[in-house]
């Protein structure tokens, strides 16, 4: 591979996991249209327990729509989405709420509730979905904040937090109920490389410590190659490649080569080979 030398320098630190275990997330021939525009075109994928799948692709390729279909925000126009073995479109409100208590979502902006303090943001799902004593909830809030390295932020209002802090606090809220399945929507978008590295580290740490299954939607190659057990590359609403980071790097698909290898070369040129070893 012409760009292989540069590409190989970006290594996945987690190491490949064996493809075994229960399938937690499954999309089968998923179709989503907005008007006449087909945004997802027969997308099929499966994610096993404990695995981290990164969905990559350029802007407007449908990766955020895929994420929203997987968390039940958009109803598919065709095909099926199954979470924990149950069909999402077939669920009633009660079943959907029960499944959603088992998942956590980190939104691109953090999406902290602006009228609540940081501590209250994290405490809200605990207060609403558990019977825990307020004193225990207070301790849990401190623990979640400690996990993301922001214990001192408990009494801040979201408007007082920087972009990087908002993402980490959004993550603390997403893991409040110790979810089995975590979704990340562009977790490092708009962050500087240092903060991106911190978020990447958190994603890997949470996957390891909580044995959570993770789906990360990103166009950030450094994050993608760093956190992925497997990767899926999207183009025009279709999955063009799915495989381990090594398989994606070795892909013969012209789009995948251009997207992954081309961008990798650019990253390497910009930051030098040592920085590219993320």
């Amino acid at each position, binding site marked *: 591979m012409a760009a292989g030398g540069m590409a190989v320098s970006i290594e996945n630190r987690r190491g490949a996991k064996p493809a075994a275990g229960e399938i937690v997330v499954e999309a089968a021939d998923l179709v989503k249209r907005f008007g006449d525009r087909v945004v997802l075109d027969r997308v099929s994928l499966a994610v096993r327990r404990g695995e981290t799948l990164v969905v990559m692709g350029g802007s407007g390729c449908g990766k955020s729509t895929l994420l929203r279909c997987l*968390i039940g925000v958009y109803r598919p126009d065709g095909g099926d989405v199954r979470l924990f073995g149950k069909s999402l479109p077939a669920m009633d409100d009660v079943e*959907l709420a029960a499944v959603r208590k088992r998942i956590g979502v980190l939104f691109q*902006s953090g999406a*902290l509730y602006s009228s609540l303090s940081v501590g209250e943001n994290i405490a*809200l*799902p605990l207060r609403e979905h558990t019977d825990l004593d307020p004193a225990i909830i207070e301790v849990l809030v401190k623990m979640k904040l400690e996990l993301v390295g922001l214990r001192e932020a408990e009494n801040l209002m979201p408007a007082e937090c920087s972009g990087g802090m908002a993402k980490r606090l959004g993550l603390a*809220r997403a893991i409040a109920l110790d979810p089995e399945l975590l979704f990340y929507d562009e977790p490092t978008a708009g962050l500087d490389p240092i903060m991106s590295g911190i978020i990447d580290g958190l994603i890997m740490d949470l996957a390891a410590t909580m044995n959570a299954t993770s789906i990360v939607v990103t166009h950030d190659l450094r994050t993608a190659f760093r956190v992925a057990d497997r990767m899926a590359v999207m183009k025009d609403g279709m999955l063009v490649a799915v495989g381990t980071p090594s398989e994606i790097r070795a892909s013969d698909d012209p789009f995948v080569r251009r997207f992954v290898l081309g961008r990798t070369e650019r990253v390497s040129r910009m930051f030098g080979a040592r920085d590219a070893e993320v």
Partner: protein
Amino acid sequence: MLPDLLGRLGRAGIGFGREAAEIGRLLYDAARNLKGMKSETVAVQMVRFGIKAIPIVTLVNMFVGMIVAVSMSELLRSLGIVSWTGKVVGVAVTRELAPLMTGLVMSGFAGAAIATEIGTMTVNEEILALEVSALSPARFLILPRMVAVIVMMMCLTVLANFVGMAGGYLVGTLLLGIGSHNYIEMNNSAIRFWDLPKGLIKAATFGAIITIVACRQGLKVTGGALGVGMATTRAVVISIVLIIAANLGFAILFNAVL
């Protein structure tokens, strides 16, 4: 030409039906969560949309009472019954103007604020975050605001009755030379037992209209800051039109029944 017109009407009908269904769903969700409503959350909203609206509601309704008194005085004087000014103001304020003007003021004061707030939360994905956390926006956002605005609309309408009549009293006694005792007697003779309950029913309905329209417009915002601005404008305009239409409906209904 005709098929095109029918097509447009059909599409408009479908759009209206969908909107009505969405509003029905929001109301159902809100009603379903009434039991778990937290009073402190409602109290916060009552202060925001009620207590803080007292000065503007007072000012507007006092001016309205004064305007009615001034504008009717010439006609009443020509009929030789200028002392009836108190009666006319009493009827106009308690039966129509107090709830109507309070509703219109609140559609700008509370409706715009609610639509902007929820619209911004929609743009910032806060509403989505609530939904995917299995937390109902109807419970956390719509219900407290709706209860607060309905209750405060009723309280503010009672206040509007008093200040509207006080405005008429000031004009009647200071400008038109009607004796204080005479004015109050005429004013009181105009007010019937059912006027206050009717005003409160209207106020509660207007409060519900303001909140549900503002919440719905805020929840369907797309397109960032521009979308939030458009939603706010739509919320206020739709509320005003619906309040006036509802007022007409109440006028016809109450005249027929009570």
